[in-house]
């Protein structure tokens, strides 16, 4: 049985289970991985299924703890208080609001390299502000999703580039300027594209009407303590390593959640945690299923077949291959896309400046966080704004995402010219 046939069989099984039999996406992935293993002559390969399921263990921990943190912010009144503060500051300034919001959403991504962290921390803070200022629920979600992805690509911490650099022994040095060239135009254009028309400049009285209750008068400065601790630790671990201990992103979110119990309105932490786990369960299940799916693809040779096929395209089609395969593979994981496809693509373009190449590829790979079924940025942005159908959020991400793709590909194509300019 050829690798191509095994891969197509796995995809067909997944489609049958998920779309016809309407099984959950995660469960469909698990059974299609099992089917691929059987067809590939590997038997049930139970230990491979278990091993693959651990591929996203760290990501799963981040998602669970970030969701708990977000719920604690909501239940304790911290979220409403921050929303009130931001509304009071920006209700007369449309462009300043949009640019500030974009910077705030990008910030956690810039220091952790994780779009999920960005969506579920500062994304959750700015969502109500934008909606109260007139931006629709789905456009707000799109702005948060895109901001989180841009934060993931922006310096100082771009994990996608680091992964690709690790594969070609390239030090993470000299990336700030190339990454800023890519990210700044995208950040400005995306925030204005999505928000400028819809955000309304309102009068003081109108603002007072939509202003949520601030609990600052009840709890004072300690209300902000969970946020300060979380942002401080996230920032400290990347800017002052060795001085600020790196306890890991999940532990930081847990610490923030714990503080949240004592810093705002009383809350039932057990119920809050249950709600967070319940809401994150579908995506956790998908990540476990995707891990198994990829493990079986690699075991049976389907992964290698896909990578080799894309690399074998003639030079012009190679760019088309990059533009399609990297975001598509991001459906599995943007980090996986950077490692599995990004490294061979850099090597295939070894005559170009590898810093520019990998910066551009990271922008393209980052779009994978919008690709179903995982679509981490899209799914969590939809949850943050309370939209049940995340595809409605993805619809508004389409134009900014295409623009990001164009910029990424332009940097790749014009790398020799840019190399002389910078």
């Amino acid at each position, binding site marked *: 049985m050829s690798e191509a046939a095994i891969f197509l069989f796995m995809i067909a099984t997944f489609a049958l289970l998920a779309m016809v039999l309407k099984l959950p996406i995660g469960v469909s992935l698990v059974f299609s991985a099992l089917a691929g293993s059987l067809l590939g002559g590997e038997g049930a390969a139970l230990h491979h299924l278990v091993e693959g399921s651990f591929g996203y263990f760290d990501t799963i921990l981040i998602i669970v703890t970030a969701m708990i943190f977000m719920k604690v912010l909501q239940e304790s009144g911290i979220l409403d208080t921050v929303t009130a503060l931001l509304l009071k500051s920006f209700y007369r300034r449309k462009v300043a609001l949009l640019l500030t919001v974009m910077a705030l959403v990008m910030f956690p991504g810039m220091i952790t390299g994780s779009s999920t962290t960005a969506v579920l921390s500062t994304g959750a803070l700015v969502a109500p502000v934008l909606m109260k200022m007139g931006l629709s629920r789905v456009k707000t979600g799109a702005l948060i999703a895109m901001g989180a992805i841009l934060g993931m690509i922006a310096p100082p911490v771009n994990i996608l580039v680091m992964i690709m650099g690790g594969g070609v022994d390239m*030090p993470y040095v000299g990336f700030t300027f190339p990454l800023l060239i890519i990210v700044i135009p995208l950040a400005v254009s995306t925030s204005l594209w999505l928000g400028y028309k819809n955000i309304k400049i309102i009068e003081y009285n109108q603002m007072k009407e939509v202003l949520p209750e601030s609990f600052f008068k009840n709890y004072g400065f300690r209300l902000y303590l969970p946020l300060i601790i979380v942002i401080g630790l996230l920032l400290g671990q990347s800017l002052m390593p060795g001085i600020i201990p790196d306890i890991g992103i999940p532990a930081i979110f847990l610490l923030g959640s714990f503080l949240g119990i004592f810093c705002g309105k009383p809350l039932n932490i057990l119920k809050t945690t249950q709600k967070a786990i319940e809401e994150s369960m579908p995506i956790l299940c998908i990540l476990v299923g995707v891990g198994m799916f990829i493990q079986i693809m690699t075991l049976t040779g389907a992964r290698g077949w896909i990578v080799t096929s894309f690399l074998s395209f003639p030079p012009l089609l190679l760019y088309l291959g990059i533009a399609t395969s990297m975001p598509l593979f991001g459906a599995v994981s943007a980090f996986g896309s950077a490692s599995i496809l990004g490294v061979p693509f850099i090597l295939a373009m070894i005559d170009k400046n590898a810093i520019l190449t990998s910066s551009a590829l990271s922008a393209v790979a980052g779009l994978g966080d919008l690709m179903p079924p995982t679509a981490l940025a899209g799914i969590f942005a939809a949850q943050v704004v309370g939209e049940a159908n995340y595809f409605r959020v993805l619809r508004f991400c389409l134009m900014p995402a295409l623009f990001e793709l164009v910029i990424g590909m332009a940097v790749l194509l014009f790398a020799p010219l840019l190399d002389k300019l910078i």
Partner: protein
Amino acid sequence: MKCLKDRLISGLLLLLSLALCFFSTQKFREQHKKETLFPSEGLASREMLSSYFPGLIDTPGDTEVYIYGGQNPGGNILILGGAHPNEPAGYVTAVILIENIQVSQGKIIVIPRANNSGFTHSEPQEGNLRGYSLETPGGKRFFRFGSRLTNPIHQWPDPTLYINPSGQKLSGQESRNLNRCYPGKPKGHLTEKIAFAIMEIIKKEKIDLAIDLHEAAPEYPVVNAIVFHENSAELASYSLMELQQIGFEFRLELSPNNLRGLSHREWGDHAQVMAILLETANPSQGRLKGKSSLSLIIEGKDRNYSKAAKFGLLFVPFDSEGIPVKLRVARHLAAIKILLSSFNELNPEKRIEVNHMPSSSQVKLKGIGQFLCPPYRK
């Protein structure tokens, strides 16, 4: 009713998951068993890495150190295998040395499982086999195929951003890559402690030449290569000419100054030792690899790599014959032998004399198994 049905399905899936974990446990536990090695009669002593750095005592990073010679003064050589346990030729070459050599002048120290923890697991989503068997005259010998990184059971969680002891910024998981952690830290995490212990061996044993045995994917530019620190430039270039004369093509690569934490850079900088890293081409660790199989590991055959070679995507020749592990081990053995003879010529006051080291031509002709002890030897 619907609620009950949902609960039943959830319960069933939970039971299935538990059964899956239970029945696969055995496979994961087996990975923690070390295969037995059979040192030659030339073995002078066997130490543990922790005897050079007690910080490793009772940790999964502690590993065997095999010492040959030392009776007659001469040069001191360190050979490291298994820094990346998914690179079989490095590990097997070290085992062949352990099971064959006798040293009559100078001293050779071999560490076959440099990252012992890396041998106890395999990387999720790489779909690797647990190991491979090599045929010896007395039966099959099993060798473990591990991971490039330390087992996360032994070192977890990874930091978001890893700044290694030399100040290089790397992605978090590289904190578990031994060959990014030099010169190590005595109070660092496990992998940094292993790196520190290896530096301690180099310093305490007054090593003159240190060789790190590796493999790389065929699509990676630094492959079939001798990577050298500037301290060993003369030795490397001298050896290259000798290797070319016996039919082995190698690239010479100077260790980059701005890529920190690797053996060929930090061993030279911190211990002033002549540092060399050898790379051969291993299709079973590449991103283009096809179905995981014994044929891929042992015979080095892979359709995807044959196709990629036709499109000019590789840095080594690759056809339907593949690059078998015996050829890769032969390359390592040839390079070690010539590095030692070149070392002798450049340092006549520190000669090193090694006997019974299998030649590359014999390994190519007879296969690896002929130079490994049978599995039942006491």
